[in-house]
């Protein structure tokens, strides 16, 4: 594959290194800063270009018009990453773009402008922390942005309104479904007759924003 990487900081340079080590990809890395570029040039030689990857002539020198199979916009600047992805997709017909989101508050802008998938270290860390810290009763496991769905995990405690009820008797919010029940280390697909018990770990799929309704049905009386 031909992969164009914008941003030669730690993230971009490491990605380029790993991809090249696989020996089956062609990679071009674009870096704007002179000091970084010189260091990268020692390692990556002609595979690194100096320039602002939001400038059309720089992208064209890097072969954007071929177009690449994937463009990864990994600079430390969210606005730049957004513009690189928009130009790649809309001006050059690049089929796959990946954008790094540095400030998670900017995620809404990427969503608004249809740039997906995005990668955010902060978001990933938060998901891990939620998973580890029991006070978060509803854990986000996976976001399916394109589908506008997410998969969450909840634990049914003693006294939870759902404990002792079968799935078909639950008044689940519209736009949500239970997927599976994990009990004593074994999981089964949730069907109408599946009865929830205290201690069960339940996977559910739902539209974002339905978390509170789901919480009410499953966890709080």
């Amino acid at each position, binding site marked *: 594959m031909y992969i164009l990487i914008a941003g030669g900081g730690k993230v971009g340079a490491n990605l380029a290194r790993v991809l090249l080590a696989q020996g089956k990809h062609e990679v071009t890395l674009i870096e704007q800063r002179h000091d970084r570029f010189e260091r990268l040039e020692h390692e990556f030689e002609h595979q690194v270009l100096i320039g602002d990857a939001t400038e*059309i002539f720089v992208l064209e020198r890097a072969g954007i018009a071929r177009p690449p199979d994937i463009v990864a916009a990994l600079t430390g600047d969210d606005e*730049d990453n957004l513009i690189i992805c928009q*130009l790649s997709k809309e001006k050059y017909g690049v089929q796959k773009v990946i954008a790094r989101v540095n400030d998670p508050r900017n995620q809404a*802008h990427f969503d*608004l402008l249809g740039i997906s998938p995005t990668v955010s270290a902060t978001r990933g860390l938060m998901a891990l922390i939620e998973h580890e810290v029991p006070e978060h009763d509803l854990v986000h496991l996976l976001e399916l942005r394109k589908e506008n769905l997410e998969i969450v995990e909840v634990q049914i405690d003693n006294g939870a309104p759902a404990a002792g009820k079968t799935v078909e008797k639950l008044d689940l919010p519209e736009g949500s479904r239970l997927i599976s029940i994990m009990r004593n280390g074994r999981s089964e697909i949730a069907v109408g007759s599946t009865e929830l018990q205290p201690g069960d770990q339940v996977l559910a799929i739902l539209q974002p924003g339905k978390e509170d309704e789901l919480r009410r049905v499953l966890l709080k009386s």
Partner: protein
Amino acid sequence: MKALVIGCGRVGSAIALQLEREGWEVTAVDEKEEALGRLGDNWAGGFVLGHGMDIQVLRDAGIEEADAVVVATDGDNTNIVIGQVAQERFDNQCVVVRVLDPARAEFYRKRGLRTVCPTSVAIDVLLDSVRACEVRPKEPAPS
């Protein structure tokens, strides 16, 4: 009528002041407090301290009620993103965006964003000035 001016540097502050003189109710947004100084001691409009990429800052500055939004920070890409947010998220009908790079200005203009490129304007004016000199070809020096 209400106008929001995002980026209150040399360009933004002049636009804010002029719009106010023309009777607009203007709010300026800048991430530096010093920017307020550019509006002078008699500034009667609003000023919100913060970054235009921040949705809450835009809301505080009244983007939902604004009739016009001018985006003129010193970053082309920042301006293009904020302009699109104003237009597509807040459905603002009059969004004007400063973009210094002619290539990006043209691309986003075609995409429906009202971009203004001071660089292109400067190039045209400079070329016209050269043409206006009416330079005649130099006569060959007598041999």
